[in-house]
């Protein structure tokens, strides 16, 4: 798994390097082309690529809802030093140099919508309906994840990137000789913050938004988050697995040595030193581990490759292949070896402490003495079989405890997988039930006057309309700052609610801001403290606002203000950047047709589609983890129970066979042996619940991200699921052992002991 993670990181690295992924990004309203030269001249800047970027509404064949397309100009001098964020053409060709109707489409968008080469997409360019022809598919390092306006998660069906000739876009959007987007590569040792400042200063007169580095580039961020999750898994799962493996190896060796004690005695009586014998067994352990390692590597490589195969479906890196690095192998091997070594050494230490004569004698009947059991009043009523079971467990409390711990650990693994799955679903449900309640969100290309609402209200099927204003801003608190959007909503808004921890509505205060808890943490501000807010569009005003309280939406981070209050501060007339609509579902198709043909709309997002998409994305990043964790959990429980029952069987085989000779049925003898395991499993279940809950709790900070935050939510179903899986796995292991019990050698016990 570690190998998978490193392979992904490496693939990303290679991809970013070969495609020359930019370091700094900036947008402006309209900057003249010669400004590019001044940008290039800035200290620390290596290359500058200017682009024309516009979001438009797309009509996609086979999709009733409108989609959003991001039109990006192709570089005028492909392959030059200034050509950053290079495209990888996966199919087809580049648009003809003078064509104004041919476009490249992002591979993911094409795949999601099953677009063939030569497909036609409807688009409104500068108020005029135009049909674009898809001539090729491409991948871009800037859009490994394609996240559209007003979107938090990628939705590959409804948002896609299209690349067209600079000429065509320049004409359509009055950007001839100008640009509105720039990607900058910095020199290796350049100070990125200084470059950002310099870029801001140059672009400011041209409506520049604040420049940002990779960490705030949506695709990069999203990818880093996802790789982070994979890294957690790559660390956490093998750790548990190795701990249990070490335990299993330890018990196996202890058992082996107890069987071979007479040989050990013989060797010692021949004069072999204890350390020689210890060495022998250590060698033996290391041989096992070496064989295990070979097998593990042999099996691990295809497994890693298979995982990569799954990730290749999600991450569109051209160079994503599974490569096992020496480092991964060394780490895996040394962890496995030291686990085995510790296990083996402690077992061997015990064996070599035996005096030769003592070791050569068969073990005397295991010592049982009246103990705790006899002192409990209710044990009088237990039958001898139950007493035997309890005494056997009580005699080796540490071993029983270790078994319980192992099974509990395995169960906790299953629980964690299930918890994440549940939490994600709960998170999506809460967010869209309590916070985002609109059916459709419409985003304008720029800030509009409130009268735009009237035309939205006039659209078919629209029941209610709630405007919002999104203001890009940089929030500063002391030395910390964060670029976010301030969302200004009407105080009595119904379609978007700010919620508290219980999902109850928080009213937007008439003055001051409400921050998402996570944003509050990033800025280290608490309610009552002041924030500096720098507007990044329009008049670029700077003002201060008091943090009134923190809110608890599980998805995204935001700062909220009252729309009237913001309008007052900005001295603008209640400008709006979009609106949330509640619609009549029956009239949705007509509404979508209208929206597709409305030029004044840059993006449309549809709640139902968003929920589905988020569900899909969450599933795909978590389902693998859930499945792997559940699978590992099952393997661990089966391994633990089987191993522990096998040890019991090898220690007490002759007891059980004697009972069979005395006329006990297979079933009764199996009960006697497995009764012990059953008690262990039963004890492990509550322990597993507690341990699982603890592990889940520990994971909460890991999944406390800007993008989403998992709630600590353990349902009864999760406990039941984990318990059921544990029980089933235990029953499977029991069945395996029962087969061995059936094969007990009854005759052997008459003649020999042990």
């Amino acid at each position, binding site marked *: 798994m570690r190998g998978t993670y490193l392979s992904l990181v490496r693939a990303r690295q290679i991809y970013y390097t070969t495609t020359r992924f930019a370091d700094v990004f900036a947008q402006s309203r309209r900057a003249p082309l010669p400004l590019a030269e001044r940008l290039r001249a800035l200290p620390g800047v290596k290359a500058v690529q200017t682009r024309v970027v516009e979001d438009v509404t797309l009509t996609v064949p086979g999709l009733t809802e409108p989609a959003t397309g991001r039109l990006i100009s192709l570089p005028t001098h492909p392959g030059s030093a200034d050509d950053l964020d290079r495209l990888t053409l996966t199919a087809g060709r580049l648009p003809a140099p003078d064509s104004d109707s041919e476009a490249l489409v992002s591979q993911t968008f094409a795949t999601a919508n099953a677009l063939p080469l030569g497909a036609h997409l409807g688009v409104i360019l500068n108020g005029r309906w135009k049909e674009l022809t898809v001539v090729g598919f491409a991948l871009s390092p800037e859009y490994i994840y394609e996240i559209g306006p007003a979107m938090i998660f990628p939705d590959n069906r409804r948002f896609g990137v299209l690349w067209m000739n600079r000429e065509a876009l320049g004409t359509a959007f009055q950007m001839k000789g100008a640009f509105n987007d720039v990607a900058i590569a910095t020199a290796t040792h350049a100070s990125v913050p200084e470059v950002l400042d310099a870029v801001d200063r140059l672009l400011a007169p041209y409506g520049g938004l604040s420049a940002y580095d990779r960490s705030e580039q949506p695709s990069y961020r999203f990818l880093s988050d996802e790789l982070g999750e994979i890294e957690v898994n790559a660390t956490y799962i093998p750790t548990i697995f190795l701990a249990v493996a070490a335990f299993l190896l330890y018990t196996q060796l202890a058992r082996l040595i107890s069987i071979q004690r007479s040989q050990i005695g013989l060797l010692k009586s021949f004069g072999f030193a204890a350390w020689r014998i210890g060495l022998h067994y250590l060698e033996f352990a290391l041989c096992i581990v070496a064989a295990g390692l070979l097998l593990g590597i042999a099996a691990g490589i295809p497994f890693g490759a298979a995982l990569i195969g799954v990730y290749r479906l999600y991450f569109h890196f051209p160079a994503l292949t599974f490569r096992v690095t020496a480092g991964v192998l060394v780490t895996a091997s040394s962890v496995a070896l030291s686990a085995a070594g510790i296990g083996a050494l402690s077992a061997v230490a015990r064996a070599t402490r035996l005096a030769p004569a003592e070791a050569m004698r068969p073990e005397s009947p295991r010592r049982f003495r009246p103990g705790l059991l006899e002192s409990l009043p209710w044990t009088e009523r237990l*039958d001898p079989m139950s007493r035997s079971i309890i005494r056997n467990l009580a005699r080796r409390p540490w071993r029983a405890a270790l078994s319980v711990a192992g099974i509990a650990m395995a169960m906790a693994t299953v629980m964690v997988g299930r918890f994440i799955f549940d939490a994600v679903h709960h998170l999506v449900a809460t967010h869209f039930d309590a916070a985002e309640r609109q059916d459709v969100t419409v985003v304008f290309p720029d800030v509009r006057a409130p009268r735009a609402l009237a035309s939205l209200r006039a659209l078919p099927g629209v029941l209610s309309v709630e405007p919002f204003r999104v203001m890009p801003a940089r929030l500063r608190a002391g030395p910390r700052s964060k670029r976010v959007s301030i969302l200004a909503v009407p105080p009595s808004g119904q379609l978007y609610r700010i919620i508290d921890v219980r999902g109850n509505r928080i009213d937007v205060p008439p003055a001051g801001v409400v921050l998402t808890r996570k944003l509050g943490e990033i800025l280290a501000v608490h309610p009552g403290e002041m924030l500096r807010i720098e507007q990044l569009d329009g008049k670029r005003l700077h003002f201060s606002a008091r943090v009134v309280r923190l809110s608890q939406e599980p998805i995204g981070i935001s700062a909220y203000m009252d729309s009237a209050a913001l309008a007052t501060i900005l001295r603008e007339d209640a400008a709006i950047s979009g609106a949330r609509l509640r619609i009549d579902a029956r009239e949705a198709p007509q509404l979508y047709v209208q929206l597709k043909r409305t030029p004044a709309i840059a993006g449309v997002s549809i709640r139902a589609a968003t929920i589905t998409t988020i569900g899909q994305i969450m599933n795909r990043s978590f389902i693998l983890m859930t499945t792997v964790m559940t699978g590992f959990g099952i393997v661990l429980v089966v391994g633990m129970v089987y191993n522990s029952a096998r040890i019991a069987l090898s220690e007490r085989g002759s007891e059980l066979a004697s009972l069979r000779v*005395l*006329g006990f049925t297979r079933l009764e003898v199996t009960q006697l042996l497995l009764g012990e395991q059953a008690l262990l499993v039963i004890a492990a279940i509550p322990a597993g619940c507690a341990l699982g809950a603890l592990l889940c709790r520990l994971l909460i900070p890991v999944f406390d991200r800007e993008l989403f935050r998992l709630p600590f939510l353990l349902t009864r179903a999760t406990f039941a699921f984990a318990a059921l899986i544990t029980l089933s796995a235990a029953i499977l292991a029991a069945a395996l052992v029962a087969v061995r019990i059936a094969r007990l050698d009854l*005759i052997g016990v008459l003649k*020999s002991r042990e």
Partner: protein
Amino acid sequence: MRTNPEAGLWLFTATQNTSGSRAVQFIRTIPDRENRAACAWCARGIEWSAHCDKPMTPPGAHTPEHAAMNAQTAVRTDDPTPPVMSMRAVSKIYRMGEIDVPALRAVDLELHAREFVVILGASGSGKSTLLNILGGLETPTTGTVRYLDHELTAADEPSLTRYRREHVGFVFQFYNLLPSLTALENVELVAQIAPRARDAREVLERVGLADRLHHFPAQLSGGEQQRVAIARALAKRPDVLLCDEPTGSLDFPTGRRVLAALEQANREFSTLTVLITHNAAIAAMGSRVIRLSSGRISQTQVNERRASAEEISW
């Protein structure tokens, strides 16, 4: 039917020996249910008093005359009552790779209620195989084995388990007690599964362990452990008690105490007892001694006077 000349000879000698021989001490039966069934002489049912739990006639006999006959021939190999166990032409061949190793060759044998049969043989003589076959742990390669009117050779595994559970008591060389249970619990554990079990405490008292009831095997001497094992076997009121070298891992005085316990059990519970051993000294204890060599019965001897355990030494 008799294909084994040795076995035929044995039956002949046995008849010769028993006819008109002096009575060996009559083994008094305790009038418990399973012994009420039939007269040991004529196999007819025994009448029981309606008001007290006693037979109208001397124990185990149909009439006082039959009681006298019984008393005359307390150990009878030509016993007209059906044998408890019988083996006919039993052979057992183990396949070891390419070679066949015969362990038993055409053995005929009848075992009757109340007998104390010592099977004597060197290692490799086939005595363990014989015991295993009697105990339903192994099935012969050819021949038939019957327990009363059940043919063990035709029985499946669950039936054999039931046979062992209800009718057979085993005593092992290495006692094979459950170390996690006290003496009493070890006996109780087995008594639980038997349909007509004796009281565990009482049986332990009979073998002289009244003061060791709550000791674990690790707290008992070898001889004590073996006596617990005997009590465990007897507690289920077996029809046959099979003992596999019960003194094999004990020193002489302890071994003798164990033998005394077996002798006492055979006397007091009238249980058919089969003891295999390589120790010739023990043979004197048996009512009948069967010597095995190379898988065949080489000699059968009826002891007209059984030595008591105290008289034996080795």
